[in-house]
């Protein structure tokens, strides 16, 4: 199964993840 997020954000939105990274729910993904 997969979860896909698509969202609008200002251009300075900064992802805090990398491809193939293992994540747990509640962990930071990004912020403006």
């Amino acid at each position, binding site marked *: 199964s*997969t979860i896909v997020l*698509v*969202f609008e954000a200002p251009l300075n939105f900064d992802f805090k993840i990398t491809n193939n990274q293992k994540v747990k729910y509640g962990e930071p993904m990004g912020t403006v």
Partner: protein
Amino acid sequence: VKTKTEAVRKSRRRYVWFIIPLGFGSGLYFYNKVADVERKVTLYRKMPLKAISRLWGKVNQMDLPVFLRKPLIGLYIWMFGCKIDEAEIEDLQHYKNLGEFFRRELKPNVRPIDLDHQVTSPADGKVLHYGEVTSGYLEQVKGVTYSLKGFLGTTPEMAAVDDDNFQRNLLRNPENALYHCVIYLAPGDYHRFHSPTDWLIKHRRHFPGELLSVNPGVARWIEGLFNFNERVVYTGEWEHGFFSMTAVGATNVGSIKIYCDEALSTNMVKKHPAGSFLDEEFKIAVPIMKGQMLGEFNLG
């Protein structure tokens, strides 16, 4: 000079006779490779994966005799590396069947919700791809794309709009950008999902679709995989404008439950016209808080 020119011509002729068969041969090789992949994809898509998934779901809804619960669920834990120490109920005999174990809850506080970042992970899993959406296309894995318009679905008014303009039309503020992130949940992962931020759900679009595997290997192989599969797209708004969260089903995991949407029922239709969907407008937008448990994937 004459001898030299003749030698150059001869060498060119030899070079041409070498390069033509080589080019032709490699062209044929790559054509066969592509045709072979296409044949395999067509064959794979023809497999009765929905029927298999429904059967698998029914089998796993049947209660197991108590003495079989520990060895059978234990085998699943061993095969897929589930972290049973994180589960709210560690006693395997408590789970009546594998389906119940699959949608297990976690102990409170094993997943603290980050407060410093606006978007947090909605699930336990692996990031397949993330980044800015460009020209109306999303990436399922690096280099393999699918159309945003096909993924979210369109309306009759927007059907003629090209991919780029479709993307632009979603933005509340034209100076913003559209971002995306794909998280893959492996069979052993915790299969409930949570809200990644504070937002308002305004609309649900359910695409009854196929149940192809969403394993990263298959995602690399089948372009537009997420546009074929059964999925539920929730759209609404957050602090910065448009926000959407989609649960995509997979082989043996086509049953999606959303706690604030009891009317939703997935993997029920055997046949469906390609690209068809069912819409549900929430007359009163549903406020969802960051970290709130939103739904679950189930076997079936």
